């Protein structure tokens, strides 16, 4: 059986990498004595599949992981057993059994919602930058790929932008960014908008199906979430 888990990554642990998170999970599942399935062969690996990588330094309340298990485990049991074994800031917030034949997270997720702090600007300033970006035909950014500088157009992946107010430290940006052909990073959006990047937090991952948006698993501490339940 397969279980899909939704978990958080907040606080200091945000400075760990995607790979580090994978290793944390492997150890936590062993410590919690979860009957995780292993691959066959010379180097057996636990069968875990993670969704989109979260850039190092970003927080998230919407990370996902599919776990293959040799024996059935009630999803409601998972959070209380595994969360204490995970580092501070990484907590299971929902779990559900996956229907056989469900697509992988990588195949299904097409966009993410981000809440991004933009330091040292007011709401008006941020709104102006958003306005420019949304009417632009293209949003070129420079990034390094395989040691070479390339220019990418971010515009097709910027699905929605809005300003959610401001405080003494700066303004709050809410963005929905596409993940195909590759996930746009908050740092790249900040570059395109010409603003500084503060703390960025992924709040949702979205699956497009039949013209509507779904979360891979709704956050539900009771652990009884149903997959594919309509989320918006």
């Amino acid at each position, binding site marked *: 059986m397969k279980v899909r888990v939704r978990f958080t990554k907040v606080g*200091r642990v945000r400075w760990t990498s995607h790979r580090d998170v994978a290793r944390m999970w492997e150890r*936590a*599942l062993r410590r919690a004595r979860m009957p995780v399935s292993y691959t066959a062969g010379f180097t*057996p690996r636990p069968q875990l599949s993670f969704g989109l990588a979260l850039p190092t330094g970003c927080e998230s309340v919407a990370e996902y992981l599919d776990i293959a298990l040799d024996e059935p485990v009630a999803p409601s049991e998972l959070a209380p057993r595994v969360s204490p074994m995970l580092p501070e800031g990484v907590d299971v917030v929902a779990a559900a059994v996956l229907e056989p034949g469900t697509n992988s997270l990588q195949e299904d997720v097409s966009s993410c919602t981000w809440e991004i702090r933009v330091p040292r600007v007011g709401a008006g300033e941020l709104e102006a930058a958003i306005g420019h970006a949304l009417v632009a035909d293209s949003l070129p950014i420079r990034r390094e790929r395989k040691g070479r500088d390339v220019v990418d157009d971010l515009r097709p992946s910027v699905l929605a932008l809005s300003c959610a107010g401001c405080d003494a430290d700066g303004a709050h940006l809410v963005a929905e960014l596409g993940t195909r052909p590759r996930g746009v990073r908050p740092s790249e959006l900040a570059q395109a908008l010409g603003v500084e990047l503060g703390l960025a937090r992924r709040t949702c991952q979205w699956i497009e199906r039949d013209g509507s948006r779904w979360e891979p698993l709704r956050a539900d501490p009771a652990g009884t979430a149903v997959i594919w339940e309509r989320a918006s």
Partner: protein
Amino acid sequence: MTSLWPRIEPLLAQVTKPARYIGGELGARRPMHAPGRVAWLLIYPDTYEIGLPNQGLQILYEILNERGDAVAERAYAPWTDMEAAMRAASVPLFSLESSLAAGEFDVLAFNLSAELTYTNVLNLVDLAGVPVRGADRDASHPLVVAGGHCAFNPEPLADFVDAFVLGDGEEAVGDLTEVIGAWGATGGESRGDLLRTLAMVPGVYVPSCYEPGYQGGRLTGVTPRAPGVPERVEKRTIADLGEWPYPKQQLVPLIEVVHDRLNVEVFRGCTRGCRFCQAGMITRPVRERPAAQVNEMVRDGLDRTGYDEVTLTSLSSADFSGIGDVVSTVINDPECSGQVSVSLPSLRVDAFTVGLAAEIQKVRRTGLTFAPEGGTWRMRQVINKLIREEDLYAAVDAAFSQGWRRVKLYFLIGLPTETDEDVLGITRLAGACAEIGRRYHHNVTVTASVGGFVPKAHTPFQWFGQNTMEELRRKVGLLKDAARGTRGLTLRWHDPEATAVEGLVSRGDRRMGAVIEHVWRHGGTFQEWSEYFDLGLWTNALDAAGLDFVDSVYRHRDEHEVLPWDHVSAGLHRDFLWQDFQEALAEHGLEDCRWTPCYDCGACTGLGVEHMVASAVPPAGGSQGTGQDLVSGGTVPVRFLETVGASMSLGSTRGRAR
């Protein structure tokens, strides 16, 4: 005491591997600082990934935090990008647990595992906001303490470290805590008083209480400046490892580090007697942990950490009396259900060990590593690594036949009496191993990893003049040529320039301090990292100090020359070491004294402790001292000295009747 975290976190976005600086490991403590509690900052002077697994540091971390009168936190050397960011933002060295400034601690305690990290020690003291030279510190500054294997020649760091601890630290840290605590309780005004009191603690060497003398550019001795200070500082030794089941809660890092697995120390000390090996000489005698305790530590450790791999650590784990029992207990444990692998560092070269490895590496069969160290039997007799060619071939055959495809062989070049034939023996041996492998597999790799030999303090080779970097380069060239045409053989070698500098610092006297400081002041940190190692800095520093490689490194010392570490003792008699050196030059091997009569090296008798070995008989199928007929080992048989009756002079007590 205030947390620096709000000033640290903004720097993390600017640096590589930011998780090096966040702490939060499983097993990390958040100790309560309070007046009356001596605050230790335990520092490993290399990156987090190298330093975190260090078991010595973790053992002391737990022991100190269990005490009511101490707290301990940790720090590692920030990488160059983080250091630059910290200096730009005026953020000092900080502790991982509470993000406290290093300067707020009572003690900065360094683990010295490698000589090339010494410039990092200075850098970290400076980053802590503490004057790098001990003479410039006052009562407001933390005490700078160091321990670890390199402390057995403390002189190169004598100007920078207030007190060295020699030998096992388990008990010594408690003694230090009490002395420092008592000094603090009485106002803690005179640093000189504190240092003089510390100098009386067994195993503690306080360099400022000793004066080096020189004549004609040579050291004439290092002698006490004040009455009551011991002329010779003896190392500390814990008698029973079973009383110290540490670490009980090994740290599990959030990021990948070296040796990223559970480590359980099965014994300390080694009496194989490899003459190049400082660790084997300075950690005597052998003290085994009871097998039942090892089993318990493995089971608890795996449960607690979630690791799927455990290493049984020691200087030669296949020699552990309970090895078969421990291994079968772990791999047959239903809880582990075939998903836990066991590894032994430094396998002994024999088929028994490979059989053991086959049993334990059912899960993940990657590569096997053996350390013949010398290319010819003659060379191996000189260094007392009595592995026959047949032993190696049998071991390699066993490995390849049981499914391994990669074998790594460790060798040293630049050993005493070495000829080009000995050097070329390395590629010949490794090539023959590759050929054996091809009987079983189409594609096999044999890697010969070649290091330049650095003579170390308190070993029989401490008098030997190290090969020059040019000579080592020439020998590497010979090997490269020979390896070129050899199928399946990969050659790796250590940079001869770094080897020369390691030699400089390993056997230097107090004058080497100026060289280390010069290199550090000119930006030379992370010298053990090839991307930062800079020979030019060291040559300039030597020039400035009026020293050179020839006299400091390449020169043979004679029997009576005063050595910079003569005033500290690892328990070994100097004449035992000299005699063993002479036997080396005469190509005489020596059996392991765990299972044969005593050679009176001095470790057991002098320290009043004994080998603690569970088994009275050596392990099956081993090499020297393990039932092997050494005479058949090669064309030159091993000879043992004649026995000359019951009351023998020191030199001949080492003989053994055959």
